[in-house]
């Protein structure tokens, strides 16, 4: 099998595996840029996965092919609502952001599985009837090289992910809203003296991350697993967090990092089936993504500088 075939295997699955991370990492960016650390991304993904699957199962007959898309919207809504907990705790009640985030994770898992048991009287849901399926993008798929790599066997959600990442960048760095959001995360008191409502901005930041987190979780559930159970979301949220830091709190950076993770992960899964990688013991491929990430950070990324005020509470007149 030639190199091109290898790419044909790795690249689509890279994008496929990256999509959920992209959304969630973007959520992280918005939250932390507003100054609120969000370890709860994992929990938000859980809620997104849970709500989307439940909705999908319940309304598949009603909405037919439209269901998966609606499920995504539902997941976003669920994520936003759930993230209010984090916002209230860490902004209004001045809770330690990390603590509240951790609680968010515990709660998400507990709550969703508890509800599954109550609703279905068993530990995990059935498979969704209406999931996302592979598509070839007409026309584009016929472009030589690019076509087969990027526009065949793809999922619409993957393109949405990339588009959204660009949009997220634009909003954050080219609009008044973005400037204000970042200012609140860097120097809330300065923002305050400029008449910006710090609390409001931070709430918005957190709720946006909630939406993104739910979105990411839903995409994972509807494209990858197809049902919701206790293993559906296992660590993706933390990987997204890593992607955000790796991407230096920048939407495009996060996008790149997420794709990189997707690449390394797909390598670890399909690698042993490929000519160049056959010989390598599986364990090396399995740990490759994580080792590569560490090396990358150590080598060329270097110190990632978080928003100055992220994790800090803002009280008027406090030095």
């Amino acid at each position, binding site marked *: 099998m030639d190199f091109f075939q290898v790419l*044909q*295997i790795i690249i689509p699955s890279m994008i496929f595996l990256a999509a959920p991370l992209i959304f969630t990492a973007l959520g992280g960016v918005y939250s932390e840029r507003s100054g609120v650390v969000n370890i709860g991304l994992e929990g938000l993904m859980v809620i997104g996965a849970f709500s989307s699957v439940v909705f999908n199962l319940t309304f598949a007959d009603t909405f037919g092919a439209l269901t998966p898309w609606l499920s995504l919207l539902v997941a976003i809504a669920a994520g936003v609502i759930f993230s209010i907990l984090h916002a209230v705790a860490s902004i209004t009640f001045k809770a330690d952001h990390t603590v509240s985030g951790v609680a968010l994770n515990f709660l998400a898992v507990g709550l969703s599985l508890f509800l599954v048991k109550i609703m279905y009287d068993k*530990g995990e849901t059935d498979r969704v009837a209406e999931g996302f399926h592979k598509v070839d993008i007409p026309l584009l798929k016929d472009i030589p090289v690019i076509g087969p790599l990027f526009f065949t066997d793809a999922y619409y959600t993957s393109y949405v992910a990339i588009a959204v990442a660009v949009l997220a960048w634009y909003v954050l760095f080219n609009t008044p809203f973005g400037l204000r959001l970042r200012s609140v995360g860097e120097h809330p008191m300065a923002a305050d003296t400029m008449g910006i409502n710090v609390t409001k901005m931070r709430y918005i930041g957190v709720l946006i991350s909630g939406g993104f987190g739910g979105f990411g979780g839903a995409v994972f559930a509807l494209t990858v*697993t197809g049902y919701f159970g206790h293993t559906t979301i296992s660590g993706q949220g933390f990987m997204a967090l890593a992607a955000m830091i790796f991407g230096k709190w920048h939407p495009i950076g996060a996008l790149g990092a997420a794709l990189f993770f997707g690449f390394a992960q797909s390598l670890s*899964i399909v690698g042993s089936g490929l000519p160049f990688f056959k010989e390598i013991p599986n364990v090396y491929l399995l740990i490759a993504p994580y080792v590569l990430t560490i090396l990358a950070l150590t080598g060329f990324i270097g110190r990632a500088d978080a928003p100055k005020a992220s994790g800090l509470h803002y009280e008027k007149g406090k030095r």
Partner: protein
Amino acid sequence: GKKEESNGSVGGKKEAFTVGMVTDVGGVEDKSFNQSAWEGLTAFGKDNGLKQGKNGYHYLQSKQDSDYITNLNTLARQDFDLVYGIGFLMKDAVTKVSEQRKDTKFAIVDEVVENSNVASITFKEHEGSFLVGVVAGLTTKSNKVGFIGGVQMPLIEKFEAGFKAGVMSVNPKAEVLQKYTGNFDKPADGRATADSMIKSGADVIFHAAGGTGEGMIEEVNSVKQKDPNKAVWAIGVDKDQAYLAPEAVLTSMVKRVDLAVADVAKKAKEGNFPGGEKIEYGLDQSGVGIAETKDNLSDDVLKAVEEWTAKIKSGEVKVPSTPAELKNFK
């Protein structure tokens, strides 16, 4: 543990023969052996007019492997007459608890515990896998088929060996791509693996990888969704997995844990509990075999399956159960 000292809700002396089971981390909807076992237990309960709960039939789910012993104990101390430990993961727990609670009967699935109060239920997965291997070998057009295993361990290697043997017996030219993903609960891995196998030319894929394997089925299914007349097939495992994706699942290697569980329970109730014995359910006892759903199988494939079934039952063919045996399988 005596009833009196245990939590006194719903007291009273009970006559019914009660059975309980402890799942491994899979849980009773793992669409695999835990679920199958629970179905068996439920069936038994229904037949004997038992209610689910303390005084009938019941299951406890383990969330982490340190829960096994606690759960087994809990059931034993609740005076369940027969307590199942489901899955190879439970071996140590069952061994330990059965030694401590001699007055309780135990049974374990997929492993062997040599205690007088424990019945060990195992299956000849290799025989069943052999049959689906035959199916795969005859169905493949590309002469490439795939096998996806979960964690690499003797139990799963039984599937691998049997499957490969089956394939090569009917289609020596066929090559078997194989991959152990190292987990049973990562559908994403299953999908990506299947994707690469298909792109590498495989057109029939068998799995023994629990949830990871479902990812494979999902993948094959989505390929079919894209292009219904593309000839790629998934082969399910443990239960008849056709319901996951009717168009994509060629057949399944079913492992009738439910039958076995109900069977042992029945024996125990009638007073001839096979304590200390190792009961192996193979093709003869129809403990393994291919799934009921045969819509995607052509008649001559089915016929071939019949023949090989006969050969195996008659002992004419000895199906290898380990990679080693596979090597010197003609």
